[in-house]
């Protein structure tokens, strides 16, 4: 009667089922499932739908898909507003992101230095990014208001704006200096600049808000990139006799380039697809569609105008750029993985 005969091998029978989650063949697919469902439902399905709509005569009232070939695309391209929107989308994106890259580099450089109140300044720089877009744009809407703009007020007080003669002329020490410099009324003799009422200024305003909005993210990305440069490498450059500018242009910026590309691509995604800024700031792309962009125009055509097919066709024009950006990002990610 030995007890050892009754001992059951540990791995056999009941016990094994308790460890089924440890098997990679089970756990892997299980963990991937939510992502796959998410991508199919919220990325894949809408994309397929958009392509289908763009070659059909679907409207908000009649969503039956009757194939009409490239009619929607021809209609879209033939439309003058579409061409303005396309040009604006590209211009806003490129110009704003070039400005952002320049400013973000400067800001990151300053913020990576040691000084008192650095945390507070970093926090303030981040704020525009944490503000919901619509709220932030509302703030700018007031700031650039055609009548009550505080910017206009400041300009008027400095004598940069407003009549130089008559009872409405502002006189104070600052405006005296401004006039002495020959800058009196450079922004016009009217009482307001009318930021959002003139096409060129409205475009400038949209650009400005894009910069304001995407600068924080780019700065933070570049800051992370700067801190990732090994201290030893910076020390070596110091010992090797490189001054500030040599270190900046031969060490820091070249080492920062890959991360700059990431920041640039993110910025492109956010500005290229944005419709909130023209929609709210210039009251749906005004004045007279001069700040219209693809995303807002697709919305106006497809949803508000009810022509789903044409709206989808307009939106499809966003796709090649987004696909290109995505491909570049994946390539960058792979490069950093392998190096």
């Amino acid at each position, binding site marked *: 009667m030995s007890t050892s005969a009754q001992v059951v091998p540990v791995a056999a029978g009941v016990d094994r089922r308790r460890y089924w989650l440890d098997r990679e063949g089970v756990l892997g697919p299980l963990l991937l499932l939510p992502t796959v469902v998410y991508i199919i439902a919220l990325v894949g399905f809408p994309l397929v739908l958009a392509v289908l709509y763009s070659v059909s005569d679907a409207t908000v009232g009649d969503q039956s898909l009757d194939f009409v070939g490239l009619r929607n695309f021809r209609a879209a391209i033939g439309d003058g507003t579409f061409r303005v929107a396309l040009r604006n989308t590209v211009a806003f994106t490129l110009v704003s992101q070039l400005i952002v890259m320049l400013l973000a580099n400067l800001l990151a450089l300053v913020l990576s230095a040691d000084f008192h109140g650095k945390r507070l300044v970093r926090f303030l720089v981040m704020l525009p990014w944490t503000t919901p877009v619509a709220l932030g744009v509302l703030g700018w809407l007031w700031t650039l208001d055609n009548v009550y703009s505080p910017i206009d007020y400041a300009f008027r007080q400095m004598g940069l704006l407003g009549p130089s003669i008559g009872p409405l002329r502002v006189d104070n020490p600052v405006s005296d200096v401004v006039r002495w410099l020959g800058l009196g009324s450079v922004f016009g003799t009217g009482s307001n600049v009318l930021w959002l009422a003139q096409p060129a200024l409205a475009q400038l305003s949209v650009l400005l808000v894009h910069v304001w909005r995407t600068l924080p993210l780019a700065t933070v990305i570049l800051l992370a990139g700067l801190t990732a440069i090994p201290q*030893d*490498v910076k020390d*070596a450059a*110091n010992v*090797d006799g490189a001054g500030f500018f040599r270190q900046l242009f031969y060490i820091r910026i*070249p080492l920062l380039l890959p991360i700059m590309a990431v920041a640039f691509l993110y910025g492109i995604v956010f500005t290229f697809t944005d419709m909130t800024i023209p929609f709210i700031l210039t009251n749906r792309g005004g004045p007279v569609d001069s700040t219209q962009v693809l995303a807002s125009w697709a919305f106006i055509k497809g949803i508000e105008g009810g022509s789903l097919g044409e709206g989808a066709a307009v939106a499809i024009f966003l796709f090649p750029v987004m696909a290109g950006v995505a491909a570049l990002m994946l390539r960058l990610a792979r490069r950093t993985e392998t190096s």
Partner: protein
Amino acid sequence: MAAIEARGITKRFDGGGGAAVDGIDLASTDGEFLVLLGPSGCGKTTLLRMIGGLEPPTAGDILIGGRVVTDLPPRARHIAMVFQSYALYPHMTVFNNIAFPLQAAKLPKETQKQKVGWASGILGIDHLLDRKPRQLSGGQRQRVALARALVREPNVFLLDEPLSNLDAQRRASARDELQQFQRRVGTTTLYVTHDQVEAMGMGDRIAVMDQGRIRQVGTPLEIYDDPADTFVATFLGSPPMNLIPDGASGLLFGFRPEHFVPASDATGDDAVRFPFHVHRTEYLGAERLLYGAVGETRTIARFPANADLPIHVGATSEFAVRRRDLKRFDRETGLRRDQIRGIG
């Protein structure tokens, strides 16, 4: 070329409790290979960085070639530094890495080419000039770092554990090459390491450091044979020096494991005898170690592996140390209490 000197150099980091480097006075001679040896965290790197100008000292002065350079930036000191990580510029070719100090000095392109050719020739890396650092092995990276240090013919080399990233085999040959290389160029070199074998093998002199202070400076022989205190005595040598409390004098007796021999072998009457209880023996190929105790104190004896020993594990036998191999230390301060040759 020039000598390096530290005068009362001290470094306290913000927020950190004590001093990382605590009032160090140290002077090299011109052309010397001086090794800074100490355990990890004792302040070697901090001292080296202060000499290089990468870290401002809290107090004291640095002199290079007799000139006070304490307030000069690194690039005004004409030093070259090799970092533990080598710190090559990852985006540049080997050629541009080596030429970088020359470009910074705005030398003409032709001169740059010539000097890079010269430095890479000395280090045997002329066939690698078009590669990027990531395409090099550890040993090749180390040579590139050395070539970059050499190329502008600096006053002083500062090296911070340059061999610690190499595998053991490669390290032994690199040690040899590095020392020969220094002899050839004759540049004053301050070499930091925590590895006593490197220190003993390479240094003209060794400065032993602990907790921000220099414990002893001397030739490898002086440091090994005549340690100034119990720290140096136990930090150098493997296994370390035995330290046994002496009831009569209240001192600590110190002796090397290889000087601890059976009493029958210690002829003459100048030997001091100890009863040695052997717990365990260990064969290490070329040598044999006996682990045991004298009284309550753990003690080790070392013999050539082929030595004929009438020793049994578990037994106690009479062992002895010749009087001139016996060092005496203060039990409280750890300092030497008898005559020493190397001076601290």
